[in-house]
Structure formats: C-alpha cells, structure tokens
C-alpha cells in the first residue's frame, strides 16, 4: 500500500514523474538552486550566478578548465601583437544552436553589445577599445592601454550570433531606463553544450544536450532541469524526498542531516570569497569626534582581540578557513608566506589600546548584514562581544544588504563587513583596484573607509599595465603586504560552501568559485 501510494504521488508529481519514467534512457540532473537566474540574456545584469548558468548555453572565446586554468574555447589561440592589440584565431566549424556558422563577425557584434553605453556588463571588459575583423576566423582586439587580464575578462563574455541579433533587433543590450523589453531576455542562441528547451521564471528552466557541440563532451547528461527553491528548508526537503538531485547551496546547519542520508553525498570546501572587516578612516567617526581607527595600534589591537579560532570552531562549525591575507590561496597574487593569521592576544590588544591612549575604549558603529555571508549575523555578534571584552564599545547594526550598503558606501559605518572573491577576474588585481586603491577616478569603488596609501596605489597602477605575469604578481603580492602590515582591512576567513548531490552521479566536480559547471558532470 505504502509503495503504491508513493508510486502514485511520484506519477502525479508532474515534472518529477516525466523524468523518472524516462531516466533509464536519459541522464538528467534536477538542480535545486537557491535562486532563479534573472534573465536569459547574459549581458543583462551584473550577476555572476546568471552568467555562469548561461555558460551552459553560451560560450566565450576562452573558458576555465577543471583546475580553473584558462583554456581555449571559441578561440583556438591568441597572440599579443602589440601591448594594446591582441589577435585571436577562432575555431572553425562551430555552429550556433540554430545552425548558423560562428565567425569573427559574431565576436565583433558581441563585443560591441557588451561594451555598449547602456550595457550593465560594460565594467566586465574595462580595457576594450575596439575590435577589427581580419578575416572570417581572425579578429584583433584593440585595448585602451596595456592590460594583462584580458583573457580573464573574456571568460565571462558570452558570444552571440550576429545574424540572430540583427534579425531580432537585439544588437544593443536591453536598456532598463528606456523601458523596452529585449528579444534576448526570452530567447537564446549560443554555441554551448546545452540548448534551451523552455523557461518559466521562478519555476523551471530546462536545457537539453547539444548533440552538435564542437567539443568532445566530458559529461554524459542529456537534460538539465534548473528549479529555483529559495527557501533553504524546502530545498533540503526536496533533496531528501528525491524531487531534486543536486543543490548548490546547502545550509551549513543541515549538513550533518544530509550526510546521514544514504542516497546523498555532501561536497564541501572553502570558497574563494574572503570575508574581511573594513575601517572608517575619515577624520571623524560617524557619531562625531576624533577617529581612533586612524591609529595603526588601534587597528592592530582590534585584530588581536578577535579569537578567530573560536569563531571557526563554534560559529562556522569548523568549516571555514581562517585567513591571514585578503585573498584566497588559489587566486594569483596570493603568497603562502604572508598568509599568517594575526592570532589572538587580548592582553597585548589592551596594551596597544592603552599605548594609543584609549585604555577606556571608545564607541563606534559596527555595520553588518544578515544574509550576505555565511553565518554573518552570528560571527558579527561574536566579534562585537570579543571587542567589548578588551574595553571597546561597538554598536552592532545588523540589517539586510540592500539597506546596509548605502550606509557603508556613504561613509556611515565605522567598521563593516565585506566579502571579496575577485570574481569574475580571478586575480588579486580585482581587490587592489576596487577595494584597496584610493577613491580616485574609477578606482576604489569599494574603498568605503576612504583610506589612501600612495605606495599601494602606485603598485596597483604598475600591475595594471605589466604584461609579464611574474613581475605583475610580485607587485600584487607586495601591495597585499602593505595592506597586511597596515591592517587596512582585517581578513577573517574564507567561508565554507557546500553542495549536496545524489549518489547517482559518478563525477560532480565542485569548483572553488562556487559555480556548478554542468559540462563536467557524469551520472
């Protein structure tokens, strides 16, 4: 009886049912995602989750391999003709899903679309100036200065078919301020390993395998069913009840339960994202009065007063990796030698505070969000109480990201949390130019504390145009050392990430950038 009921519910379970019935012949992954993709247009919104999902349908000139090294994709080779000109040789015989041939014109149209005035992804290709088609399978990309990270940027620039864009009046990206919808928001035509079958927002997006893919498939999937389930508890329930067979965001507190389930395996590792604290470095604190955070001894004391090991064990349940540097180990520019956590020494912290003239402590705003990073609310509370223990008086302010960000960005926070993964670039340069550089011109957008270290700025600017990889990485490491010595920002940890998959999959690689890549999955 129990069995027949169960069978009936499965049969009536709709989508689920169709799959189970056909699963003998088709290898399907049913993906329970923490959120939906925002659009089918990869140039729609600065959202790496969406861009990564669409990488199943669209491809770039280059891509990351299993070890996150850049390898050829739609381009087979490239050479630096002059410091500002790169020549790409394109792969021949590649076809778009609608059958059109892939040529240099398609690359040009895509580059123009992504760098258009109104494109939200313009910042993803900052060095682009123009491109020239040399012949059908050769294209020159002109840059506005020497720029070593072009390939990193190109991994995220998906290539459209020019004819398809023109035919559907979608050569320009959709401009939200104009209030007109775009064709590419609802339709796709890429070269990638999967073809879109259908999409219902917030319900499901279904992909089928592209039989005519140019590359030798390393996966054996025939179908991907992407179903967003935003409530974490429901997501776990759906996995346990077998309605989905992969979730890419398993809540830390549910991991023991998922591990105990016989038909599931949990994949865990630490993320590339380093969570850190920033300090207000203006003349006055938010509440007014002289700013003690400008004193290096105070910042050192605040670092020594926090017992990161305790937070790692209790708050992060042993799953995080305490950091001594502002970037994670696999990011180019990282140095193992420098990655030494400051340690915990409350007595020394008190002594440093006394030396700086603040033995009675001082009051400051400590701004955290409740959902940006793993267990953020809890670790912020822990840090605040540890600071209280050495005599400081933090006023903890926790709220949603959308509410806290304007405070932090407008200098209304004395100490704040920030997580940086250097995505999509995957290079230390990302944090140097966006976070640590002085707030001048286009640099230092996330320099929310408004500090300025001319020496660090100089190293960043030199690294920006240095084409020799080793020299450039050394400059970046030197800049990170300044940040460490001066405690510009206080690194906390690399946060844990966890996926859970059904045992039916024999190979399901987990990447440190937390992006599931379906073209490496075998069932």
């Amino acid at each position, binding site marked *: 009886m129990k069995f027949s009921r169960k069978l009936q519910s499965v049969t009536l379970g*709709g989508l689920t049912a169709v799959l189970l019935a056909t699963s003998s012949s088709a290898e399907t992954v049913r993906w329970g995602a923490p959120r939906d993709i925002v659009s089918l247009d990869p140039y729609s919104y600065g959202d790496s989750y969406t861009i990564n999902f669409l990488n199943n349908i669209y491809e770039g000139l280059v891509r990351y391999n299993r070890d996150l090294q850049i390898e050829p994709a739609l381009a087979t080779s490239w050479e630096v003709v002059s410091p500002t000109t790169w020549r790409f040789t394109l792969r021949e015989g590649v076809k778009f899903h609608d059958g059109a041939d892939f040529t240099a014109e398609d690359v040009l149209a895509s580059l123009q679309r992504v760098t258009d005035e109104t494109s939200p992804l313009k910042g993803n290709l900052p060095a682009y100036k123009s491109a020239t088609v040399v012949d059908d399978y050769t294209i020159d990309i002109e840059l506005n200065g020497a720029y070593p990270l072009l390939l990193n940027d190109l991994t995220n620039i998906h290539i459209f078919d020019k004819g398809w864009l023109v035919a559907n009046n979608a050569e320009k990206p959709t401009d939200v301020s104009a209030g007109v919808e775009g064709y590419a928001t609802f339709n796709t035509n890429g070269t990638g390993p999967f073809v879109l079958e259908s999409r219902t927002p917030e319900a499901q997006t279904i992909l089928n395998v592209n039989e005519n893919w140019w590359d030798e498939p390393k996966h054996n999937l025939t179908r991907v069913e992407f179903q967003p389930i935003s409530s974490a*508890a*429901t997501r776990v329930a759906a996995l346990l009840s077998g309605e989905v067979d992969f979730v890419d965001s398993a809540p830390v507190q549910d991991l023991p339960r998922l591990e105990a389930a016989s038909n599931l395996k949990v994949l865990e590792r630490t993320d590339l994202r380093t969570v850190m604290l920033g300090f207000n470095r203006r003349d006055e604190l938010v509440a007014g009065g002289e700013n003690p955070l400008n004193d290096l001894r105070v910042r050192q004391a605040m670092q020594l007063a926090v017992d990161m090991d305790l937070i790692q064990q209790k708050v992060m349940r042993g799953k995080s990796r305490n950091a001594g540097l502002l970037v994670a180990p696999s990011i180019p520019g990282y140095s193992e030698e420098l990655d030494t956590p400051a340690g915990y020494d409350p007595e020394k912290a008190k002594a440093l505070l006394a030396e700086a003239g603040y033995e009675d402590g001082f009051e400051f705003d400590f701004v955290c969000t409740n959902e940006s990073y793993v267990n953020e609310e809890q670790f912020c509370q822990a840090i605040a109480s540890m600071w209280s223990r050495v005599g400081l008086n933090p006023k903890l302010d926790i709220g949603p990201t959308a509410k806290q960000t304007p405070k932090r960005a407008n200098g209304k926070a004395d100490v704040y949390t920030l997580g940086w993964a250097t995505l999509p670039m995957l290079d230390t340069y990302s944090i140097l130019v*966006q976070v640590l550089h002085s707030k001048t011109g286009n640099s230092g957008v996330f320099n929310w504390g408004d500090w300025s270290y001319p020496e660090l700025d100089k190293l960043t600017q030199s690294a920006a145009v240095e084409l020799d990889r080793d020299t450039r990485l050394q400059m970046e490491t030197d800049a990170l050392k300044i940040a460490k010595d001066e405690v510009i920002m206080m690194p906390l940890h690399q946060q844990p990430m966890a996926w859970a998959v059904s045992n039916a999959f024999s190979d399901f690689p987990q990447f440190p950038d937390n992006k599931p890549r379906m073209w490496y999955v075998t069932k």
Partner: protein
Amino acid sequence: MLAFIIKRLANAVFVMLSVTFLAFVIFRFVGDPVDQMLNEQATQEQRDDLRERLGLDKPFLVQFTTFVGRAATGDFGISFRNQRDVLDMIAERFPATFELVLVATFISLIVGVPMGVITAIKRQSWYAETMQFTSIIGISLPSFVVGIGLILVFSVWLGWFPAFGRGDTVDLGWWTTGLLTPSGRMSIVLPALSLSLFQITLVMRLVRAEMLEVLRSDFIKFARARGIPARSIHFRHALRNCLMPVVTMTAMQIGGLIAFALVTETVFQWPGMGLLFIQAVTFVDVPIMAAYLCIVALIFVVLNAIVDMTYAVIDPRLRGAEK
C-alpha cells in the same frame, strides 16, 4: 445612487494615491538598486551614469509624479533586474496566486463551517473542546512553520505530495492553470492547506459565534416547539441565517490572503506574485515593488467597493446616510 458611486470612486482613487505615496517613501529606505545591478568590477562613473539614466538622482517628488503619471496610463516600466515588462510579469504570476487563494478559501469553508456548527451545538462535548483548543494553534502558529511542518511530514516522510513548485500547468491563453493537470492538483494541496489554516480558524469561530446567537432566537424556539428534527433546524434554518457575515468576511479576506500568500509562496516556491515581490525587495527592484503594491491596493479597494455597494443595494438606510 450615482452620487454614492462617484463618492466611492473618488475615495478609491485617494486610497490608491496614498498607497503609492507611502510606497515611494518606503523605497527610499530599502536601499540603492544600482549597487545590485552592477557587479563588483563596475567603476564609480558607470554607477553614477546608471543612476542618472534611471532617474534615481532626481528629487523624491519628481520621481513620484513621473511614476503616477505613467502608472495612470498602465505603464509601470520594466524590471531593473529581469528587464521585463512589470505588468506582464505580474499578470503571468497572478493566476498562480489567485488559484492558491481560491483553493485555500474553499478548504477553509469546507472545513471551517461544519466545525463551527459542531462546536456551537455540542458545546460541552470533548471533541468540540478539542476543536476549540486546536483552533488556537491554527491561529497562533506562523505560516512558515506550518508550511515547513507540512513539507516534512507529507513530502519527506510520507512522500505523498511534492515539496515545492506548481507542477504542470495548462496555458489557456489569458490564464495558466495548474488545476487541470494531476501534478498541478497534487502541488497545490500543501500550500493551500498551509494558507487556509488561519482562515479555517476564523471561519469556525465566526460560524460558532453566529450560531450561538441564532440558536437563542425566537424562530428557532418555535421550530423546536413544532417538532422539526434537530438536524434540519441546525443545518437548514440556523446555519442559513449565519452565512451572510461569513460570506462577507470571506470575500473581504480574499484580498488579505492574496497579500498574505507571500510567506506561503516563499516556503513552497509557489511562482506567484508574493514570491515575485519578496525577490524584488531583496534586489531593490523598484518598478516591481511599486506595481505590486498598487495592484494589491487596487484589489483591496475594488473588493471593498463591491461589498459597500452591495450593502447599499440591500440596505436602503446606508443610501440615505449619504444625503
């Protein structure tokens, strides 16, 4: 009567404008959409530029009047995040929410009315007491707890119903329905049940109170004296006299349920308007938030106006009061 209708309409417009105004005041505190629209690599210049193009740098009153002017012509703009027409997005999700609310209302009447009658006529019995007691649980448990509980029992342990989603839907052109497919019907059970729990309690308590009142009235006493069977008295004569307030309350509550469904929709990943709204709040998608609030306010206003007008038709005294 005409003057009455005009007055009601003027009221409705005033309410809508106030809601929009309040919504705009609130939007100023939910954050900056530009931070979410561009990624980590965007420069300050690109951020300022986008803010300017979206008109977010303009003073509050200018933004408000532009919005009202456009909304009056049915143009709510396109979503910052999804780049889709906001009205289309809401229209696409409205059927899901409305079906959920209808089924929940249906369940609450089917279950709530008999429970109300039983608790009224068998006041002293143990089962009436039990129902009364459990109804307190129904009214005091937050709906996300109920939802997760239902998922745990019926999806994870028993495997009877799906834990999330709406199942297969049939597209009728202007309406998508899940009620015509087996998977759609299975999918609606848990969310509708979770949404109706509060309603069941409400209906039950209302029916009970009304029944107690009616059972004391003279015509029931006469009916008893004439020897009419108890079942006929209770369900034919007494219950009918209780139903008017129940129907009114149910109609008024539909608006409330549509607005309230957002918690249930989030728990069950039900692709309705509430889920859309919650996500719009997280991403500060102002066009969607504004349109959603306007539409929910409109539903309330329309429902209230209909109820008021019906009353005016039924009860001449209300018409007189307007003079």
